[in-house]
């Protein structure tokens, strides 16, 4: 498994963390003790998750010639 494959795993885990954090913060915001900061954190997390996915596509395109092993 090459660095490219491991990087793909890393990007997947990072996007999962971003979207997971977003879900957690949205739940906090709509819960009984929600504050505007929770909503801000959730929105930024969604944006970061989107950026990570866009980066993932970019790096796969850029390193097309390098194998996964």
């Amino acid at each position, binding site marked *: 498994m090459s*660095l490219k494959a491991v*990087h793909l795993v*890393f990007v997947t*885990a990072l996007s999962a*963390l971003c979207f997971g954090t977003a879900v957690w913060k949205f739940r906090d915001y709509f819960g009984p003790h929600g504050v505007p900061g929770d909503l801000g954190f959730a929105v930024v997390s969604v944006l970061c998750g989107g950026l990570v996915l866009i980066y993932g596509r970019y*790096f796969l395109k850029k*390193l097309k010639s*390098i194998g996964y*092993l």
Partner: protein
Amino acid sequence: MDIPYTVQPRPDTGVYNAKVGMWLFLASEVMLFGGLFSAYILLRVSAPPDTWPQGWLSVPLGTLNTLILALSAITTLMAWAACKARMFDRYKVYQGVTLLLALVFLSIKAYEYRDKLTHYTVTLKDGRIADGHLVSRDDTTVVLDGQFVESRAHLMNPKRHPAKHEEIRISMDEVKRLQNYGPAYNTFTALYFTMSGLHALHILGGMLVFAYLWGPGSRMWKTDPARFTNRVEIAGLFWHFVDLVWIFLFPVLYLT
């Protein structure tokens, strides 16, 4: 005598030897961190209500460190890709940026540790409990920037029991117990310092390897660029593992 399979893949494994070695090492690392994560989760779920700290760590600083490590993973990959494309100057830039990012990560971690190690809980002989950051301490008096709390349970979730901090002067004659938020404070701090400290040691180890590959080790580029590129790749594999560990550590320690 040449060391075999430093560049060419070994026929039976399909990859060069250093990569097999690194994967075996990472497998042992998974077991090491896996044991610690298991210990954390079991202790966390079995903790009685109001005995497990929440909101003790700074989420903005943790988020910043996550961002820094994510960027360093990208620069590590770019450094390897630059070697593959035979662009040594670009490799130097990316590897140098990785080193700087790692240094910033450790600096933030050191700041967080300092914050915890200067945070004290003082139990007085009359049963009162004071909690806050240490301002000064000598043989006669301890001064905290903090608050008096009704019980230790109130310390577990500062957001649920907000209080105004003020300067508290306590005579040492009144003090029954003085304890900072170090590893011996409670189960959470013990796990926090053990897991994040072990992770920080891995960051330090990675920095040493990167510094070598960026500095004296980069001479190999002139004599054997393919082998040097493979060295950069396996160092990158290790770095990605360390980054992945942080992706699990961050939600477990900071967000739960």
